[in-house]
């Protein structure tokens, strides 16, 4: 999964690069970027791998990138990953679901020290569930740094908890320079939730490394049809639907098998179904998978089934399609945007509709009208690449770097006018306190006293000078992902 670097391109020079014959990239400046999120290795998931892969590609493009997250058990302090990617594991208290507690103030001394030490110019926060990401945005605005936020998830509007979190998101994003969403549906959702101007929201999809997900048709048995499911077994991923589909289809097709990878609280109902219908030899439950094993599971199947009830982007179906599987999925969230109609069968989120979709896939498979895995792979691998993501993210950085950060008085105005009279005033007051705290910290340890960190990546990067031809796929297992 680590990025395969193509190295040695000129770094400072203005660069003209041709991509697909139409795109001209013109770049003269590099940025010092700090990615902030509560979620990073050793935690596993979509956000974590997104941050890692994006950082690697930005390093390759000549930027300086550091990552800030909270300490995971005894993984604390500073660590270096592949290509000198520096990660700060800060000693902040974890509150719930790997998200840190927030007081809006206590992280300022540490974060300010890092931002000054690393000469950071752009703060890029990830995930609306991460308290640390929002804290960093708050402090960065107080310090006058440019801010970018990536939203990875969808939210509803109906219940009390989403009303509250949406209000907090409004506060956090009202003076953020630019927001990135992973799909158009996600953009609509974020614009509505945070009452944003849609012009400052960009859509940049996630990506998968196509070299990690290659087809291998010899690994599957053609006498039987195998349906693969790889997801966390939780309610939001539609495991309940799966428990209805399995008996329905197994009764109808005697030569049909299921392979289910993943772990979660809903595993028990799948085990009950397997017990009840005596399907032990036909339904295999693999348990938690490491990300590097996912491909080996995928290639054993003919059809990939995704039963999610909500999804902003859904990397799993891209990975499966990249392995040459037929994809059957529920039509929810951003999923209809991800794959073209001829590569995916979309169904309503009900057992009946999903069974119909699977039967259609099975009949296509039997009649041989479905393209060969290799052909599907060759089409899909052009869709989403991390290089493309990095290129587009870089454009956002370029745009943001040219914008002015709101000075304190206008920021307070914006907070009060944008977030409602009560919430706005409360957070304006907090912003003032934060500013006073910052002045106090600057008086205690002036910026000039803080050492400048050794630059591992980026334009005079210590790492790249020492190992100019470093091409190994270091930390291969680094981003292995458990679902």
């Amino acid at each position, binding site marked *: 999964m680590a990025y395969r670097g193509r190295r040695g391109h000129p770094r400072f020079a203005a660069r003209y690069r041709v991509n697909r014959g139409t795109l001209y990239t013109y770049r003269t400046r590099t940025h010092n970027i700090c990615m902030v999120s509560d979620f990073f290795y050793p935690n596993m998931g979509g956000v974590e791998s997104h941050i890692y892969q994006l950082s690697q590609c930005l390093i390759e493009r000549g930027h300086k990138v550091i990552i800030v997250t909270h300490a995971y058990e005894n993984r604390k302090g500073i660590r270096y990953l592949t290509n000198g990617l520096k990660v700060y594991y800060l000693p902040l208290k974890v509150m719930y679901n790997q998200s840190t507690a927030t007081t809006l103030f206590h992280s300022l001394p540490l974060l300010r020290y890092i931002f000054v030490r690393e000469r950071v110019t752009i703060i890029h926060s990830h995930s609306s569930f991460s308290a640390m990401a929002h804290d960093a945005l708050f402090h960065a605005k107080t310090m006058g740094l440019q801010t970018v936020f990536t939203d990875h998830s969808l939210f*509803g509007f109906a219940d009390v908890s989403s009303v509250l979190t949406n209000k907090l998101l409004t506060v956090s994003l009202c003076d953020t320079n630019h927001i990135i969403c992973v799909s158009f549906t*996600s953009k*609509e959702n974020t614009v*509505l939730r945070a009452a944003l101007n849609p012009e400052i929201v960009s859509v940049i999809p996630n990506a998968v490394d196509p070299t990690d997900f290659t087809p291998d048709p010899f690994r599957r048995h053609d006498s039987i049809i195998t349906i693969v499911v790889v997801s966390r077994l939780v309610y939001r991923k539609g495991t309940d639907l799966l*428990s209805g589909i399995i008996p*329905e289809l197994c009764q109808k097709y005697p030569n049909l098998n299921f392979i289910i990878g993943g772990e979660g609280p809903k595993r028990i109902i799948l085990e009950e179904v397997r017990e*009840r219908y005596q399907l032990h030899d036909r339904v295999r439950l693999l348990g938690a998978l490491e990300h590097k094993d996912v491909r080996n599971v995928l290639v054993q199947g003919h059809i990939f089934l995704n039963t999610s009830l909500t999804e902003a982007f859904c990397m799993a179906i891209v990975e499966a399609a990249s392995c040459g599987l037929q994809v059957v999925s529920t039509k*929810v969230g951003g999923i209809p945007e991800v794959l073209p109609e001829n590569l995916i069968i979309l169904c309503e989120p009900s057992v009946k509709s999903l069974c119909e979709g699977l039967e259609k896939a099975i009949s296509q498979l039997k009649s041989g009208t479905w393209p060969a895995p290799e052909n599907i792979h060759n089409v899909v691998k052009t*869709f989403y690449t991390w290089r493309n993501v990095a290129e587009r993210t870089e454009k956002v950085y370029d745009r943001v770097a040219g914008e002015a950060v709101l000075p304190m008085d206008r920021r307070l105005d914006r907070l009060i006018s944008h977030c409602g009279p009560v919430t706005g005033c409360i957070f304006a007051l907090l912003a003032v306190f934060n500013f006073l705290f910052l002045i106090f910290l600057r008086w205690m340890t002036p910026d000039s006293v803080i050492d400048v960190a050794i630059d591992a990546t980026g334009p005079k990067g210590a790492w790249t000078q020492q190992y100019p031809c470093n091409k190994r796929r270091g930390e291969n297992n680094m981003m292995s992902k458990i679902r």
Partner: protein
Amino acid sequence: MSAEPETQAEEIRWQKVLYERQPFPDNYVDQRFLEELRKNIHARKYRYWAVVFESSVVVQQLCSVCVFVVIWWYMDEGLLAPHWLFGTGLASSLVGYILFDLLDGGEGRRKSGRTRWADLKSALVFITFTYGFSPILKTLTESVSTDTIYAMSVFMLLGHLVFFDYGANAAIVSSTLSLNMAIFASVCLASRLPRSLHAFIMVSFAIQIFALWPMLQKKLKARTPRSYVGVTLLFAFSALAGLLSISVVGATLFALLLVSISCLCPFYLIRLQLFKENIHGPWDEAEIKEDLSRFLS
């Protein structure tokens, strides 16, 4: 993506897809932006008198609490003989019991399969035990100060009103908790009455008005809505009359409360419906509408 020459861009229509590189910038906002947004798709239209009719459940329960407190006050002052209350209670219970079966022609009884003998047995057991334990009830709270008892009763009766099952499907509703709180309040208040016979009759009256009466009401409401409205009005007026004989100010306030709950609140509910803005769209979490338990049973 950087923009292509404009002439070309005009010909190509923007698609809501991610897999194609489109000649639009990443922050491009198309006309189709938010076109799938829907508002208030599950909103219900209310009619004024229907809401007023439904609010009578709350009115009934408020009146029950009021009647209970008034009766207790009369007993405490010695204005109401316990024998008389017991006699009336027993008679009205019998009438209610017969009415309960008559209303649906004995259909509910046949479904539950419960015999009259079983009803009689549980009634007897209950009366005997309450009678036997009433001296204990009387002395149970002697060491507790009277003010504490009153405060506790007020909280318990308020709790009874909060947790009562008015027919709403909410997490806070719990008819067991609600009934328990009412009985607790009645035990507290009964312990302040002059004799243990008073205490026994007070607790059995509480059971009648908080446990049995709502069951009969529910059936009345479902079967004969017209007579239910009549019963509610009668009940409300008798509660008011009872309160009036104790305190004029209290009765006025209680009347205002009843009017605001049955007339003003429905009016506000319907007015506020105009401001409802419930947003729905493709980002909503899908609901599983089928019953999936059939695969496991």
